[in-house]
């Protein structure tokens, strides 16, 4: 099981959860487990073609999975998967 951290903007779609423990041996499998639990998250992370949106970053521990093996990156027990869209807030 790995820990998936949900950013504030996705929490409504993830039933208000901040962190979930999910199974899966690759980034893709963990994300599929997430979509199974919270189907509304899928459209916010992926295109209809199944690609991750370009504005969403996914980190395995502290590394961007873009620089690893993308969705096929292996995930081990105890790893943390962090989903990170950009935030704009500052002045307002």
């Amino acid at each position, binding site marked *: 099981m790995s820990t998936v951290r949900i*950013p*504030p*903007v*996705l929490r409504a779609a993830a039933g208000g959860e*901040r962190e979930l423990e999910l199974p899966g041996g690759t980034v893709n499998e963990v994300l599929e487990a997430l979509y199974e639990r919270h189907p509304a998250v899928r459209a*916010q992370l992926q*295109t*209809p*073609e199944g*690609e*991750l*949106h*370009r*504005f*969403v*970053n996914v*980190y395995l521990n*502290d*590394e*961007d999975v*873009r*620089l690893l093996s*993308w*969705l096929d990156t292996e995930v081990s027990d105890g790893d943390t998967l*962090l989903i*990170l*869209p*950009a*935030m*704009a*807030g*500052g*002045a*307002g």
Partner: protein
Amino acid sequence: MARSYQDLLAAAREQVPEVQVADLASRREAGDAPLVIDVREQAEWDEGHIPGAVHIPRSFLESRIAGVAGPDREIVLSCASGNRSLLAGTTLREMGYSNVASLAGGFQRWKQSGQPYDVPRTLTPEQRSRYSRHVLIPEVGEEGQLKLLDSRVLLIGAGGLGSPAAYYLAAAGVGTIGLVDDDVVDASNLQRQIIHTTDRVGMPKGESARIAIEALNPDVDVRVHQFRVTKDNVLDLLADYDVVVDGADNFPTRYLLNDAALMTRTPLVHASILRFEGHASVFLPYEGPCYRCLFPEPPPPDMAPSCGEAGVLGVLCGVMGNIQANEAIKVLLGIGDTLAGRLLIYDALAMTFTELKVRRDPDCPACGPNAVLEFKDYDAWCAGVGRHAPEAAGARA
């Protein structure tokens, strides 16, 4: 038997050889200069000294000499007229410094002989008092404080992040602070925008911040830019500043600033906030990753709520704005390890700091080797016009 001052000087003269101004000057011209240590008091040093000399007041000579020179180093001691330096020479000889001489006639004769001398820029007595806790830190010191006073920081937004950042940068003595904001103070700002006050509701934010900064620190020159940053004004704006602190509230401004910071090679100190979560990083143009290496594209508007829509904890702004002030000071002074190459995520609810690695993207459309960097229509781009998510995702994978 008691010994007079003259007796002591005569004894010192027997132990410590004297060097004439002309000899020291010609050796310096020949590039074969011994180390000159000026043992006068601070106020005398401040009025002028031999260029390149090291200043150790006589009373600190024994305790500080080891940090400046080893016992075999050739040293010429200098004071005002050549007496204190003679006596200081006997002390160094006692400490095992064998190659020590004294400058005959001291700085007065040096100056009268028409030799060049430096009058250092120093902190005023008021500044020395105001910034004493900075001056005490070895990494800052008087030199660093003077550097801060000469520095110019541009803050984008005098709001949630800009308020604490401007306050602390002003307190730190950053000499020029520019504030870009076209908004006016609203009562709903005061829960977090601490540079503004209840009686200034309705006032332009830049003007309100100017009042607060000038009351805090009269050393700071506040420049208010009461407009929005656009591609037409951003390059002229950035050209006048050493560091930009990004506290913007929208993606078009953030992407515009990133591209302009690259074009002008201006370090960009980033932070963003929402509810209980803050992000911070430092983007050093072409040395580290840029904002578009981290986030190549903005999320669609429905995934990018503003603080006005989703809310933000007031204290979070203080934490993140001060992290920005901290990073700006480090960039200005060239000290420590900045957040360049790292994204810091602060979760105020869980009270955790998470650090992610951010690397330069070799295919970055802004700072990559093949990038053609030009301004675009950031408003349309951030609204999703001209972007096709599936293609983009494929290109990125």
